[in-house]
């Protein structure tokens, strides 16, 4: 049962072949069996999940009309506030904190009857690309437990790819949904900026952050997208427009006549051989389905990484000022009449990890007088150029494509002491965030050199998220018929069971 898609599970629930309690218990059992190895979860709320499941079963029995995902279990990235459930954003500074409110995403999940099983591991405050920056230890890639699942939403991605959950939610500031989806062989979508409410999403870089769905299929991901998206008056940057018809697009999966633009700057040199090979093959599949492949030029993308690593740290240095040891979270050093400032500094030293400190200091530097124009100011102008590159490219193509990440999953510890090498892994995902548009990663196969999953990235203009699902579903179907079985069937068994 746990290896079915969320859509199949929903169907089984609707037909009365199983109950949400049974389904939830099966996933909780799977978590008990394998999460000691994968370490996807920071907190499992078995009691809360079973209570939610029971309530959905009761409502279904009474004949109530339920949302399509009612009763389906889900794993939630620990960056989203859930009332009364520990929420840490992977940081020691929030250890033990239980929010007194629900984020809008959580409210929407609860309204739809989705069963939240627990909170997943992540790089501290979503700063990282490997989940190694978590204050609570790393998550391990189910494909190879010596490797990272990517990040920052590595816990959510690992939970879905190890069948601990059929669906999960992540957040994507520079690729933190798409890159871990690529590295674990699943589907992940970063919706258009403003399409999903950021109310209750612990802020890292407010102009780039966006929560989004993970699933094992394009359709499952679309079903979750539809539940979590929509206008929210509690988020001033939330787009007041109907949610694009993503589920219908995922069901149609027709790319005949669709123009697909290959971004010249996001391939070739610097991309692992097997990654490039799977990307090229996927393009051929799309062409054989009737899509027209064109090449597009985005010269400013060369500077996207530099702009991102100024803008995101600058915004984080401001956003993380709220962790001041006064209202919630950790407080240390409050002894012998120590000043508020001394307590604040001691607490932030004890509570923040290495990468968070590094980014706060970098942001503080980039925003300081005398350097502001040269660093933050220039980065904001590069951002404009990237938006213009995309606008031009989208006059020639309906969607743009690239490999999601330059490499497959790397070893735990391999890049942890070399921040620049780690940052380079985000080179293909970051432009989407800077422009505020939407992007998807879906599995394109395994790299022959290491037998690890490769991600294919699709990008579409703001509020054209349905195009991702349309193209993604087409490619997914073509690859599935070529492979004969889902890619996750090739993943090794965990804990001696499949």
């Amino acid at each position, binding site marked *: 049962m746990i290896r079915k898609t969320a859509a199949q599970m929903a169907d089984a629930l609707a037909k009365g072949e199983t109950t949400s309690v049974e389904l939830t218990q099966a996933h909780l059992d799977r978590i008990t069996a394998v999460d000691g190895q994968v370490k996807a979860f920071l907190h499992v709320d078995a009691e809360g999940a079973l209570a939610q499941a029971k309530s959905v079963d009761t409502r279904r029995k009474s004949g109530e009309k339920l949302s399509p995902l009612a009763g389906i279990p889900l794993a939630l990235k620990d960056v989203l506030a859930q009332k009364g459930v520990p929420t840490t954003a992977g940081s020691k500074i929030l250890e033990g904190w*239980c*929010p*007194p*409110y629900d984020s809008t995403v959580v409210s929407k999940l609860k309204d739809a009857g989705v069963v939240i099983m627990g909170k997943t591991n992540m790089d501290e405050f979503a700063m990282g690309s490997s989940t190694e920056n978590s204050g609570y230890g790393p998550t391990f890639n189910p494909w190879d437990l010596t490797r990272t699942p990517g990040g920052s939403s590595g816990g959510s991605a690992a939970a879905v790819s190890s069948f601990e959950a059929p669906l999960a939610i992540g957040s994507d500031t520079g690729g933190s949904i798409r890159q871990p989806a690529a590295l674990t062989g699943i589907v992940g979508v970063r919706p258009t*900026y*403003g399409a999903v409410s950021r109310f209750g999403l612990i802020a890292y870089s407010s*102009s780039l952050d966006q929560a989004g769905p993970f699933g094992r299929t394009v359709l499952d991901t679309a079903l979750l997208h539809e539940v979590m998206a929509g206008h929210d*008056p509690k988020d*001033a*940057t939330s787009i007041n427009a109907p949610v694009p018809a993503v589920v219908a697009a995922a069901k149609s999966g027709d790319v005949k006549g669709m123009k697909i633009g290959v971004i010249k700057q996001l391939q070739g040199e610097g991309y692992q051989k097997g990654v490039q090979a799977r990307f090229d093959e996927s393009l051929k599949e799309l062409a054989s389905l009737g899509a027209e492949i064109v090449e597009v030029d985005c010269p*400013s993308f060369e*500077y996207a990484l*530099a702009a991102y*690593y*100024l803008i995101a740290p600058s915004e984080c*240095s401001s956003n993380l*000022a709220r962790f*001041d*040891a*006064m*209202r*919630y979270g950790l407080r240390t050093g*409050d002894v012998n*009449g*120590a*000043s*508020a400032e*001394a307590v*604040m*500094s*001691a607490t*932030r*030293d004890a509570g923040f990890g290495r990468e968070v*400190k*590094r980014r*706060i*200091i*970098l942001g*503080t*530097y*980039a925003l*300081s007088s005398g350097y502001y124009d*040269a*660093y933050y*100011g*220039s*980065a*904001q*102008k*590069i951002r*404009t*150029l990237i*938006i213009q590159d995309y606008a031009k490219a989208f006059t020639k193509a309906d969607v743009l494509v690239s490999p999601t990440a330059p490499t497959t999953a790397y070893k735990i510890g391999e890049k942890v002491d070399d*921040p*620049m090498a780690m*940052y380079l892994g985000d080179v293909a995902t970051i432009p989407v965030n800077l*422009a*505020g*548009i939407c992007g998807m990663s879906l599995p394109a196969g395994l790299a022959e050199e290491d037998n690890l999953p490769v991600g294919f990235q699709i990008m579409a203009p*703001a509020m054209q998220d349905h195009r991702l699902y349309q193209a993604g579903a087409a490619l997914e179907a073509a690859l599935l018929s070529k492979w004969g079985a889902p890619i996750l069937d090739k993943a090794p068994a965990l804990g001696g069971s499949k």
Partner: protein
Amino acid sequence: MSSLSRDEVAKLAGLARIEMTEEELVNLSSQFGMILDAVARVQEVDLTGVKATSHPQPLENVARPDVVLPSLSPQDALSGAPAQEESRFRVPQILGEAE
């Protein structure tokens, strides 16, 4: 090659209210040259006449109707407080030494 001295890092850490050990200051100082070189690439481009983008959406001054909506009770708002007293957050002293 850019660089940031140990003392410059210490000053920034002070501004960011993060106490740091000598080892952390020296480590960060040694990593910063490389990171600054990489991000300074934004200065290679001719940006004259290019407008800055602070935000990907053309939204301005979004307001909601001025009506009272339910919000957190004082009890809920204080539920995560490291210390509290008389329904208020208790904070360390903020004005110099105790009289």
